[in-house]
């Protein structure tokens, strides 16, 4: 859908990318990777020396043909890291600013709906200065949605918020995902947020897009790459059964079923599970029935003796386990070997 070449004093972007027509696409990478610059190019806030951008069949920029549509004529909205509300307006006037100026857009979002999704009913008549960080950001997201954009750009919208506000805004965004089908490009450097929100992920580093794939695939890659910091593998699972007597929740994922301490979600919810390497145990043969819970067959994807680490492929999901060098030799572990895996404890 787009390609850019941007050269500035501190940033160089040289990339090609495609964004799925709906759902949340996470744009992930370390700080300084050029994520924000790419977003600003898409919005038309920066004008790169070479660039092409097509949204559906619409051309927003084509440097060969000399086309550059200015920001205010692009049917998009942008949520910045800082809420950036207009301080000389009330909450209501902030919300209506974009709505009034996009009369020609096909209005698929109603004012009442946005107020409900973002829980703004009680805030409408408040002064901007009296809002908390989370409240401000919810107003900013609502203001962006009310433009009825064809593309919503979000640049780390929760990274400047405290934990409570962060969760409050993230849960609003999760609800939003179910109700609105516009494509959202979401910049973040948090794997947690990716796991919670993204359907598709673009990996960016040094101004280039290194990978573009469904979220699950990239999240597993990411967690295996960062296992040195004891970072967990992220496994997406669906809640299928609640058992309050024990109390356990049963979820299904690509590798089978998994039981975890009871969680409060409702049945059918998708939950991201964090599986730490220290919680993964290997067995050469199928373990006895007494401990059959959360046991799966897997194959060894790779062995890294120097970091005491074995990477396992569990039906397409990559997990890490710590195994000492001595044990690796004693058990004669090798790549491709079939093995049994038990996940002892999982946190969400």
């Amino acid at each position, binding site marked *: 859908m787009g390609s850019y070449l941007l050269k500035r004093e501190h940033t160089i972007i040289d990339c090609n990318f495609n964004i799925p027509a709906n759902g949340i696409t996470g744009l992930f990478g370390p700080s300084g990777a050029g994520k924000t610059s790419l977003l600003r190019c898409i919005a038309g806030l920066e004008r790169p020396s070479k660039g092409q951008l097509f949204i559906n069949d619409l051309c927003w920029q084509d440097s060969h043909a000399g086309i550059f549509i200015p920001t*205010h004529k692009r049917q998009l909205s942008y949520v*910045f890291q800082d809420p*950036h509300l207009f*301080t*000389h307006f009330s909450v209501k006037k902030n919300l209506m*600013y974009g709505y009034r100026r996009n009369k020609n857009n096909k209005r698929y979002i109603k004012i009442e709906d946005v107020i409900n999704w973002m829980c703004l009913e009680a805030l409408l008549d408040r002064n901007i200065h009296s809002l908390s960080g989370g409240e401000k950001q919810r107003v900013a997201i609502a*203001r*962006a949605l009310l433009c009825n954009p064809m593309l919503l750009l979000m640049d780390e919208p929760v990274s400047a918020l405290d934990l409570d506000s962060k969760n409050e805004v993230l849960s609003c965004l999760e609800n939003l995902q179910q109700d609105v089908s516009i494509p959202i490009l979401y910049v973040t450097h948090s794997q947690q947020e990716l796991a919670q929100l993204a359907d598709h992920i673009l990996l960016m580093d040094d101004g280039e897009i290194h990978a573009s794939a469904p979220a699950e695939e990239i999240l597993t890659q990411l967690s295996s790459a960062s296992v040195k910091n004891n970072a967990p593998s992220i496994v997406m699972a669906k809640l299928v059964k609640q058992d309050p007597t024990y109390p356990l929740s049963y979820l299904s994922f690509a590798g089978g079923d998994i039981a975890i301490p009871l969680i409060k979600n409702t049945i059918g919810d998708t939950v991201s599970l964090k599986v730490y390497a220290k919680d993964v145990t290997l067995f050469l043969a199928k373990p006895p029935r007494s401990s059959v819970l959360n046991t799966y067959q897997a194959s060894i994807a790779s062995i890294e003796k120097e970091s005491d680490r074995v990477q396992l492929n569990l039906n397409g999901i990559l997990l890490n386990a710590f195994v000492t060098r001595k044990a690796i030799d004693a058990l004669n572990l090798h790549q491709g070997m079939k093995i049994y895996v038990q996940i002892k404890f999982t946190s969400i």
Partner: protein
Amino acid sequence: MTMAPIASVDFSSLWLSLRLAGVSTFLLLMIGLPLAQWLAKTRSWIKVYVEALVAMPLVLPPTVLGFYLLIALGSHGFIGETWTLISGHSLAFSFSGLVIGSVIYSLPFVIQPLQTAFESIGDWPMEVAATLGASKFDRFLSIKLPLAKRGLITAMVLGFAHTLGEFGVVLMLGGNIPGKTKLVSIEIYDKVEQFQYAQANTLSMILLLFSFLMLLALFAFNHQGTKLRI
């Protein structure tokens, strides 16, 4: 000191001064808003030259400025000659000439508060407004001007008050034609020369009170603004 009764004082010079200040303030805003906006945004090397030029009236003796304006606007000056060709009237010793002189003389008092206000706003409100679909002109009117309200009002009051109080430039440029170019500041000077202290006192006192009230209103407004912002 005695004061002449209001009824016995000729106020035509005061009205002329108020009219000049009004017209000049309007023109100052028309020129000052885009110029201050440009100065706040540009990274061009010309910027410092323009800034220095605009600030010149702050340091120059008004007579120097008045002298060169008289030359330029006079019937042999480039501007004056062109003006006479087009309009048939001379620019020096006319109300239009006074307006041109006042605008140049008061420009730094309008540019500086506006430029500071625009600079302190930063880029983000305009970028946000653009992503919400507002055109350049729309953004300027709906976002930038309201956010620069304090600078705007300061610029207007200072521009108006400074024009009202000028003496040297208008004396050089306008001469002393009653009802046409005789402003209140010059009238006061004349009265003193003629030892009509009572008349001078009345006009001076009116000007003094008026200026004080105008500045009082400005500072009260700005102070209230500070309180509201906390």
